[in-house]
Every structure is written in structure tokens, then in C-alpha cells.
């Protein structure tokens, strides 16, 4: 990364040329970008339930319907009806209309002189109001009309305009405009007249997306510019993030045009999101560059420092943010998959644009200054950071108590969250289309439906009264629940037929199988194919409802399922399916997926930090500043009654993906400062001083950007923006409060850090013990050890001591002797050990008490390698252990040679020649 940044800095025109060329190529695809709202984009991909629903739809038919809604005090006035008839005739002529179901076409099953008459209700227009009233009363007896084509009070009439099968989303605008044109004259005759259906809803959403793109885009750019101006006050620094965002947007739109992924309710936020999120890495790079410049470094030197210090950091933070966005793509919901792919790809483009453009731009124009300083810079960040840290440390218990209280309160609010996704929320509150949908839901049976499919696998099952009565009982149960105004099935048609033939005053199910058989002679299966299979072994109950809340709908479906489980005949199997059920499953899937993403992201983050500091505790503590915002987010949602839906669940995953960046910047800087100063408090203050401005800048820019989404008319998007801003704000607070306090409580200055760079570089690789080992293996072993400091003449161990560790001389010298064996002093010196040499290992390996005495000949530092560490190495790292023991064996052998040499030359107790031989390579392990 460092090399790439420097390459772009050295060859700025090449870098800019590359960006320009790719942008031009992407721009050629912009005209292919489509705005498309598909009905099944919110469903789970490859869902077996969806496959079953499609099979059911193929068998019973799935109608693409638009409702003509007419409301008036008196519907059955001849003049109005005549105008309506003419309008319906005109609509039926439209090439995309298959047929119209209305009181002009729905058969009125009745007996005329003992023969069945299926003339529609309005074949003859009523001559007066009284006749019209009687007709309405008759029509309301028909379950296929009641609440479907006629409201219970007789003041709303509907006509179902069934569109041809080949009509799809691309025809939405044409369908909407043509129907609007024909229906417009009806408004002069009825109090309220409109057409509403999925084409209208989709058209309205598409228009709203276009409008919002036009409105929100400038707001997002404005918010970003304002935040950058207030915080950075540098012309280049303000323009560069906007430029990288613009480049990445063009590239992303190019990918959309090329791949055919359309702009929809969710993917439409990607461009604005890139403006908001894409600025963060730019700010960090620019901030580092300016910091170096302020320290007096030249432009080239500042660029080098930026590349050296921020290269790895921006890469890691990009990875975490990318993971946050890409986690959304793991969803099995098509629209979320599209969003995840686009947003993560956009982010990748933004990263590329950033690492190419920023060094190139700074190389060319890094010396340009708007006013040459920032307000924040004026206050000497070092002093500010020190004061802040002192204040924070002084009030740490109070602050922690407050945070703990906030967390507790938030945690108590979490169980209050309801998982609820409302499809109508995709429409603006004041939208005309939304009001129309609500009118249909309120006055008629609603636009939503689900089916209960009963099957026996045996021909003619549903020609038996026993099973038909079961169907009727299920329908009665559903109607008792009060959530569905209309349930229709084959039994209703049969009851209507029976009523007609038996000349009854209300529909009634036949009393015997014989009667059913006789009625079947007069039934054309085409009239009931939407409800029963042609072999009468499979039957569908169609439940129309207006339940918009997934919570209420799930409870409703659960109650129906429980009823079926308890009461259904053992010979029948029942399955609930339909668009509503698929929406329920999709909602559940998307919310579960997003929550899993949050957990996965936090785990990923913990892993990165743990590896960085080689300490899991640091990873866990670093996760705290990011876990708190999630807790606060869910707490706020619980108390405010904000449901967990597509927008709000996405907020948690995405916002956390972004929020961890600041913590990562913070921790990486802290790590770097710690390595240079090896003092925690000093490192903390330096981190606060160095990261304060960029972290605050990016967070403020993100908050401002996310708040732009609150201007959206789409409620899920609006909530997404508000909650994301809340998460970023809370994460910012947590980064500056929890992170410093939490880190200061840990002993992050580990043994590795305490060893001077010179020692690490010169002593350890030269030590016979570590020969042939990789750096990380050495580091792992050393981290499992302890350091011991000894004064000159201090005894390290005595004869008879337990042998639980061997010693590596890091600096100084040690003499090992057998007490009372020398003629002169009473001690026989066995050997002397210098830097890099190992002693005390024989007793450890032999599990014997010490036979010798070791004493420091000068101030000495020793690395103590415990027996437990050796055994752990044997057990868990056999390769590492084999190398270690080979080195030990060689070392012991060399010492034996030296010892024998000393016996051969008693004048010199230390056979230097032999020792030197070993160091020269004559005695020692292979390197």
C-alpha cells in the first residue's frame, strides 16, 4: 500500500490519467442504468417456500390486478353506471388488459324458472334507487363480491382490472398513464375515483426515487462540504473527498449499467452513501499529510510519511468497512444482495480512487492553502489532548458509571423492539398513492393476500361434504379473527350454486355428496380453477387482507396454522403460502441476516485488534466502543417504538462497519505511538492529538451525511439515516471516552515492546536457542516468558533450588559454579555465559533441583523461559518444539565440548577456544 501511494505521488499525471480513462469508460454505461421496482425483489432468493408458491401460482393462477376504486353515497344510479360501463369497455380495449371483473361481469348465480342463470349483476341497469339497493343486497351475499368488489356499506365499488400475463415492470408507466387517462372522467361522476395497483405503486416509488436523487444529492454534497470546511479549512482537502466520491459514483453507476442491477428503493441510496462514507479515508490521509507539513516536512517528505503511516491503516479500515457493506450482500433477499454488491463495489472503487487521487493531488497541489490553517490546529493539539486526557482520567469513575447506566437503560429497552416491516412505508406519508392504497385496505378487502392450500392426493376429495365442511370451518375461523375481510374458496362457489338451484335466501353448502355431484354437472371448472384442481384433490382458500404489519400478520398466520394443526382431518395436508407469507419470511431473513452481520463485523474487528496487539483482551476492549452504539441504537429503537425493519436493521450493520474505522484508526495510531514511546499515557495523548481531528472530522461528515437521509420520504430510508447518524455519534463519543479509559487499564506494553529494538534485532536472532525459527515463532515464545533484572553479584539460583526455568542472557554476564569444589575460592566455575547464551536448561529438562549456583557478574537482564512454556510448545506447536529442542540439544552438546575442553586445560576454567569455536560456527545448530 505504501508503495502504491508513493507511486501515485511520483507519477501524478499517470494516476490522474488512469482515473480519467476509467471514469470515461464507466460514463458510457450510465445511460443503461434503470430505475426499476420489482414486486419480488424483496423476496428470499432460492427460497423453497417461494418455489412452492410459484407451483401453487402456476396451478391456481396468479393475477396481476389493478383496482378501479369508486366511492359515492349512491353507487347504483343509472347515469353513473352507464358512464362506468362505457369506461370499463374502453379499458377492456387496452392491449395490456386481459379482462375486467366487476358487477358488470361477475356472474350472479340464480335460478330463473328453475334454470340456472349466470347473468352478471349489472347486465340490466337498475331502473331506480330501490332496485339498485336490492341489487346491492344480492351482490353482498356473494363472497366473491363482498369486500372484493363492493364494500359492506355499499358505498365503495371496485373493478378488478386483470392485466395480461406478459405485462411486467417495464410497462408500469404506460399502464398507469393509460388507465389514469380513461378513469379521469369518472371523477366528475363519483366522489372518489382512482385506479391503484402494483404498477401504480411501483411508478410512484420510481418517481419518488428520481425526485429524491435530485433533492438529496445536493444536500449530501453540501453537508459533506460544510463539515469539511468547518473542520479542515483547506481547499484541496475539501475538494479531494468530493472528487473521489464523484469518481466512485460514476464507476459504480457504470457497473450498474453494465450488470443490469437497477436503481430501486434500497440501491438508490448507494450514490449518496458513497459521498458520505467515501470521504473518511481521504480525511485521514489528508490529515496525516497536513500534520507532517505542520511539522515542517517538505511536500515529498510529508507524502512519504503519509504513505508510511497511513498505508496499512487505510487498507485495514477499508477492509472493515468493505466487510460491513459486503455483509449485506450475504443476504438472500435480492434487493439487499444488490445493495450489498453495489455498495461494497462502490466502496472498493472509492478506496482505489482515494489511494490514487489523494497522493497524486497532494503531489501536484499539496502546497495550495485556502488560509493555511485550521481552527483546530491553532490550539496545539498536543496540549489539548493532554488536558482532555487529564480531565477524562480524573472523572473516569463518574464517566464509567454514566456509561454503565446508559448501557443498562439501553439494554432494558432492547426487548421492547418489535420486528415489523411495513411495505406501505415505502411510500411517502403524504403520497396520493399511499392514501389510495390505504383506502383500498380500509374500505375493501385490501391488496395483500395469502393462500391456504389443502391437499389429499386422492381424486375427488373435495367433492365430499365432509372435507368441504372442513374448508368452510377454516374460513369461518379466519373470519372470526377479524383480520381478513374476505376468504374465498371452492366451497363458496358451490354454496352459491346450491343457493341458486335450491332457491335459498343465502349461500348454503350442499348437505350430501350426492347433491354435490349433481351440482357439479352445472359447474364449469374454468370458473373455479383458481380455487380447486381439476381432479379435486387440491384446494386453495384465498385470504385477502389489509394487515400491513408483519408482526400482526405473523401472529395471524401462526393462529391459522395452529388451527389447522389441531383441527384438520388427518387425511389432509395444509400449507400456508402466498405473497404475504413470502414477505414474512423475507423480513425475518433480512433482519436475522443483518443482525448476524453486526455480530460478524464485531468479531472480525476483535480479531484484527487482537492480532495487532497479540492480546485477545485488547480486541475485546476495543470492541466496547462499537458494541455500545449498537446497544444504544437498539435501546433507542425499543423505547421510541421504532421497529426493526429493512432500513433499521441495515443501519446497525452499515453504521458499525463504518464506526469501527475510527476505533481502528485510533488503535493503530496508539499501537504505533506505543512502539515509539513505550509509555502508555504518552502514547494515548499522542493518539488523541493525532487522531482527534480526523476522527472528529470524519464522524461529523458522516453524521451530517446520514442526517441527509432523514429528508427522504421513504420511511425505512429516513430511519436508516437517523439511526446511522445516532450510531456514528455514539461511536465517536465512545471512541474518545471508552477507548482511552479501557486501554489505559490494560498492560499493553508487552515484553516484546519492552525489549529494545537493538536487543530484538541483534541478540535474539543470534541466540542459539532461536536459530532457524521464524520471527513470529520467536515473538510467540518470548511473549510467553518474563524478564528478570539482576544486580552485579546477585545470585540467580542456588544449589537445591527448584528448576522451573532456563535463562537467556539478554545483556550482562553470568557465572555458573559448583560451590565448594575449587581449591582457591571453594567454588568450581563451570562456565560463564554472555549475551545470547542459554543456561540453567539441563536441570529444567532433567527435572532435578539445581546443583550449581548462578550469579550475575555485572548488571544483567535475563529472559526466563518457564518449563510450562516448553511443555505448551510440545503440546500445541510440535514443529516449533522440535526446532527448539534441536537447538537445545546442540547447545548442551557444545557446552559439553567446552566442559571437556576445560578439563583438558584446567588452567583456564572456561575453554574459550571451544566457546569461540561454537560461536564461529564450528559448534552450533544449522542456521
Amino acid at each position, binding site marked *: 500500500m505504501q508503495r502504491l501511494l508513493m507511486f501515485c505521488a511520483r507519477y501524478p499525471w499517470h494516476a490522474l490519467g488512469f482515473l480519467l480513462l476509467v471514469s470515461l469508460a464507466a460514463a458510457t454505461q450510465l445511460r443503461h442504468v434503470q430505475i426499476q421496482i420489482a414486486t419480488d425483489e424483496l423476496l428470499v432468493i432460492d427460497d423453497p417456500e417461494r418455489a412452492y408458491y410459484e407451483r401453487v401460482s402456476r396451478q391456481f393462477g396468479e393475477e396481476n390486478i389493478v383496482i378501479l376504486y369508486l366511492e359515492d353515497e349512491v353507487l347504483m344510479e343509472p347515469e353513473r353506471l352507464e358512464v362506468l360501463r362505457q369506461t370499463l369497455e374502453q379499458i377492456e380495449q387496452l392491449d395490456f388488459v386481459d379482462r375486467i371483473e366487476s358487477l358488470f361481469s361477475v356472474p350472479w348465480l340464480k335460478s330463473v*324458472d*328453475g334454470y340456472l*342463470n349466470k347473468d352478471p349483476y349489472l347486465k340490466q341497469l337498475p331502473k331506480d334507487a330501490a332496485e339498485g339497493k336490492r341489487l346491492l343486497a344480492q351482490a353482498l351475499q356473494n363472497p366473491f363480491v363482498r369486500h372484493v368488489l363492493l364494500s359492506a356499506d355499499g358505498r365503495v365499488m371496485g373493478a378488478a382490472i386483470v392485466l395480461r400475463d406478459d405485462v411486467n415492470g417495464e410497462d408500469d408507466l404506460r399502464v398507469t398513464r393509460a388507465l389514469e387517462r380513461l378513469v379521469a372522467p369518472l371523477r366528475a361522476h363519483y366522489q372518489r375515483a382512482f385506479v391503484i395497483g402494483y404498477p401504480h405503486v411501483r411508478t410512484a416509488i420510481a418517481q419518488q426515487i428520481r425526485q429524491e436523487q435530485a433533492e438529496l444529492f445536493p444536500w449530501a454534497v453540501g453537508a459533506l462540504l460544510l463539515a469539511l470546511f468547518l473542520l479542515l479549512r483547506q481547499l484541496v482537502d475539501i475538494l479531494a473527498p468530493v472528487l473521489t466520491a464523484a469518481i466512485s459514483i460514476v464507476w459504480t453507476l457504470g457497473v450498474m449499467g453494465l450488470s443490469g442491477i437497477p436503481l430501486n428503493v434500497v440501491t438508490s441510496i448507494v450514490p449518496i452513501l458513497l459521498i458520505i462514507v467515501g470521504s473518511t479515508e481521504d480525511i485521514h490521509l489528508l490529515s496525516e499529510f497536513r500534520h507532517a507539513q505542520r511539522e515542517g516536512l517538505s511536500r515529498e517528505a510529508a507524502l512519504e510519511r503519509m504513505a508510511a503511516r497511513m498505508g496499512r491503516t487505510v487498507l485495514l479500515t477499508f477492509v472493515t468497512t468493505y466487510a460491513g457493506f459486503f455483509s449485506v450482500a450475504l443476504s438472500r433477499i435480492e434487493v439487499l444482495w444488490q445493495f450489498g454488491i453495489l455498495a461494497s463495489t462502490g466502496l472498493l472503487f472509492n478506496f482505489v480512487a482515494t489511494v490514487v487521487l489523494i497522493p497524486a493531488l497532494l503531489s501536484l497541489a499539496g502546497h495550495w492553502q485556502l488560509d493555511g490553517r485550521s481552527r483546530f490546529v491553532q490550539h496545539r493539539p498536543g496540549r489539548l489532548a493532554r488536558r482532555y486526557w487529564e480531565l477524562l482520567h480524573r472523572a473516569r469513575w463518574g464517566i464509567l458509571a454514566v456509561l454503565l447506566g446508559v448501557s443498562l437503560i439501553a439494554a432494558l429497552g432492547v426487548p421492547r423492539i418489535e420486528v415489523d416491516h411495513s411495505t406501505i412505508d415505502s411510500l411517502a406519508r403524504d403520497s396520493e398513492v399511499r392514501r389510495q392504497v390505504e383506502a383500498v385496505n380500509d374500505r375493501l378487502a385490501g391488496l395483500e393476500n395469502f393462500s391456504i392450500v389443502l391437499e389429499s392426493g386422492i381424486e375427488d376429495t373435495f367433492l365430499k361434504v365432509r372435507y368441504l365442511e372442513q374448508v368452510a370451518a377454516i374460513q369461518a375461523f379466519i373470519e372470526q379473527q377479524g383480520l381478513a375481510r374476505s376468504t374465498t374458496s371452492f366451497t363458496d362457489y358451490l354454496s352459491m350454486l346450491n343457493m341458486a338451484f*335450491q*332457491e335459498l335466501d343465502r349461500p348454503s353448502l350442499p348437505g350430501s355428496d350426492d*347433491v354435490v355431484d349433481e351440482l357439479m354437472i*352445472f359447474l364449469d371448472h374454468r370458473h373455479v380453477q383458481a380455487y380447486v384442481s381439476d381432479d379435486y384433490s387440491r384446494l386453495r382458500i384465498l385470504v385477502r387482507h389489509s394487515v400491513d404489519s408483519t408482526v400482526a400478520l405473523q401472529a395471524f398466520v401462526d393462529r391459522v396454522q395452529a388451527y389447522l394443526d389441531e383441527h384438520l382431518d388427518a387425511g389432509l395436508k395444509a400449507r400456508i403460502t402466498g405473497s404475504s407469507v413470502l414477505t414474512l419470511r423475507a423480513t425475518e431473513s433480512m433482519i436475522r441476516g443483518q443482525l448476524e452481520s453486526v455480530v460478524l463485523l464485531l468479531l472480525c474487528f476483535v480479531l484484527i485488534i487482537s492480532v495487532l496487539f497479540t492480546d485477545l483482551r485488547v480486541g475485546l476492549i476495543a470492541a466496547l466502543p462499537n458494541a455500545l452504539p449498537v446497544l444504544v441504537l437498539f435501546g433507542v429503537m425499543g423505547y421510541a417504538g421504532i421497529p426493526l425493519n429493512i432500513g433499521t436493521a441495515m443501519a446497525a450493520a452499515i453504521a458499525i462497519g463504518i464506526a469501527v474505522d475510527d476505533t481502528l484508526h485510533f488503535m493503530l495510531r496508539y499501537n504505533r505511538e506505543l512502539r515509539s514511546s513505550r509509555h502508555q499515557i504518552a502514547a494515548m495523548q499522542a493518539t488523541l492529538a493525532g487522531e482527534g481531528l480526523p476522527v472528529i472530522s470524519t464522524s461529523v461528515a458522516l453524521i451530517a451525511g446520514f442526517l441527509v437521509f432523514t429528508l427522504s420520504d421513504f420511511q425505512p430510508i429516513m430511519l436508516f439515516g437517523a439511526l446511522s447518524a445516532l450510531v456514528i455519534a455514539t461511536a465517536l463519543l465512545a471512541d474518545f471516552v471508552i477507548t482511552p479509559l479501557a486501554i489505559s487499564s490494560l498492560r499493553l506494553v508487552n515484553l516484546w515492546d519492552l525489549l529494545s529494538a537493538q536487543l530484538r534485532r541483534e541478540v535474539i536472532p543470534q541466540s542459539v536457542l532461536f536459530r532457524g525459527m521464524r520471527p513470529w515463532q520467536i515473538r510467540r515464545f518470548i511473549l510467553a516468558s518474563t524478564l528478570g533484572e539482576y544486580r552485579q553479584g546477585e545470585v540467580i539460583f542456588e544449589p537445591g533450588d527448584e528448576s522451573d526455568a532456563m535463562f537467556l542472557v539478554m545483556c550482562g554476564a553470568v557465572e555458573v559454579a559448583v560451590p565448594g569444589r575449587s581449591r582457591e575460592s571453594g567454588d568450581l566455575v563451570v562456565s560463564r555465559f554472555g549475551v545470547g547464551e542459554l543456561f540453567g536448561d539441563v536441570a529444567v529438562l532433567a527435572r532435578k533441583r539445581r546443583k550449581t549456583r548462578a550469579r550475575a557478574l555485572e548488571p544483567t537482564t535475563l529472559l526466563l523461559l518457564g518449563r510450562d512454556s516448553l511443555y505448551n510448545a510440545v503440546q500445541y506447536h510440535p514443529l516449533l518444539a522440535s526446532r527448539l529442542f534441536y537447538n537445545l540439544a546442540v547447545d548442551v552438546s557444545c557446552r559439553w565440548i567446552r566442559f571437556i575442553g576445560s578439563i583438558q586445560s584446567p588452567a583456564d576454567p572456561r575453554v574459550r577456544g571451544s566457546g569461540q569455536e561454537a560461536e564461529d560456527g564450528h559448534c552450533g545448530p544449522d542456521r
Partner: protein
Amino acid sequence: MRRRIRERASLALMGLLPLIAALARSAPSPVFSAPYSGERATEYEVELATGPHARRSFRIPSECPAAHQAFRAGAQQWCNRVERRLWAKVMQDCYYTAFLARARPGAQHDFVSGYDFMNARLGDLPLRRHCGLDKGCEPLPPGVIDLGQILARVTTREEGEHATPEACQVEHGRFRGWVRFDSQGGMVCWSDPRANGFRIIAVDYADVNGDGYLDAILRLIPLGRDYRRVPLILPLTRKQPDAPFSLPDRLAVP
């Protein structure tokens, strides 16, 4: 005995079908309930299975002989439950057509066609009020329904404050209500849309027993929850004007 007579009559009709089909052109053409639609029709077309993988369309009644031949060949065994019932209807309609076609043309006496059966008084119809399993009435000719049996349940019902003799009347082809006989042989009725009853769906005129007196053949369907919608045949005749109607003698109805 009744069963034997019915079987013989059926066999006789079957044997005569080809001849009857030829005569049918000049015979009164009855109306039927068309399959699937249930509408009133003098002719209808129906497609039925005639073999394991064979289906054929029949126009009824003009193609009754072909239908009959297929039926006798066992076509109905290849049908499902509903189609078997449809075969039964087709054959029933064909037999009825044959029954009318067998009638001798040009009856010398007509005391029936002037009567408005669609608004008939119940008292004019042969209800056979005292007949039952233990009453020892003469058995009805094969295929002829016992109207009294359709209304049998109502004869036991005693309540009804608004019962009047005038209510014992068919109205626009339908009677639906309760009937009570008094000890003097009188009859009072009251209307009730939920009670059992009957609907006259067609009245055909022909001298079906060849006695020179024109007969009225009523086809009616019983109304009530458990009644099948199968047209029942009630031939009526009278040999004097204003006399009550009776069943024609020497009659075999399909």
C-alpha cells in the same frame, strides 16, 4: 313388481331408440338444463370420455342414439365421478326425449293444456295424501314420482297461524312452504322460503299412453337441503274439464 316393470320399460325404450330418434323430429321438443352452464336449452353439446384415451362430443338430443350406444359399451367406466353423473344426465335426457317421442300424435281430447300448471292449486294435483307404506295404495307407474312424498314431511307439521287454503298454490312454478290436512280432507298451507318444496321446470304435452286424451308431463325438481337436483317426472291427465288431475293409466315413464 315395480322394478320388473321399470326394467322392461327401459329395455323397450332402449330397443326403440333408433326409431324414436327418427320420430323425434316431429315430437314436441323438450327443454333441458345445459351441462356446465345450467341454462335452459332445447339442445346442448357435451364432451364425454368414451374410452381410455378417447373423448367424444355429443349433441343432445339429436345424437342420443350414438350416446346410448357409447353408454351401453361402458363408456362411463372411463369417466371420473362428475362425468359419470353427466353420463347419467345425458341418458336421462335421452330417455325423456324418447318417452315424449313415443307419444301418439293428435290426441282427440285436450283437458290439460288450458290449465296453468305454473300456478296450479295443490288440491288439483294427485298428492295421494293417505298413501304410505302401510296404506295399501296402488303402486305408481314406474318412473312417476309421488308428489305427496316430496311434501310428506310438511303434512305432519301442525303449527302455522297464517295457514290458509289459498296459500296451497304453486306460484310461478314454485311451491315452498308447509301443508296441513284436516280431518275433513281439507288442506291449508303457508309459505316459507326455508321449507322443502318443489319447482316445476317444464311442462310438456303429449298423449303418452295413447288413450286419446292429451296428457301434461310435468318435470319438477324437489327443493330442500338434501334433495338432489334431478328432474322428476309427473304425468297428469284428466278426462273432464275442471276435474282434479290424475296419473294416466298404463304408463311407463323412463
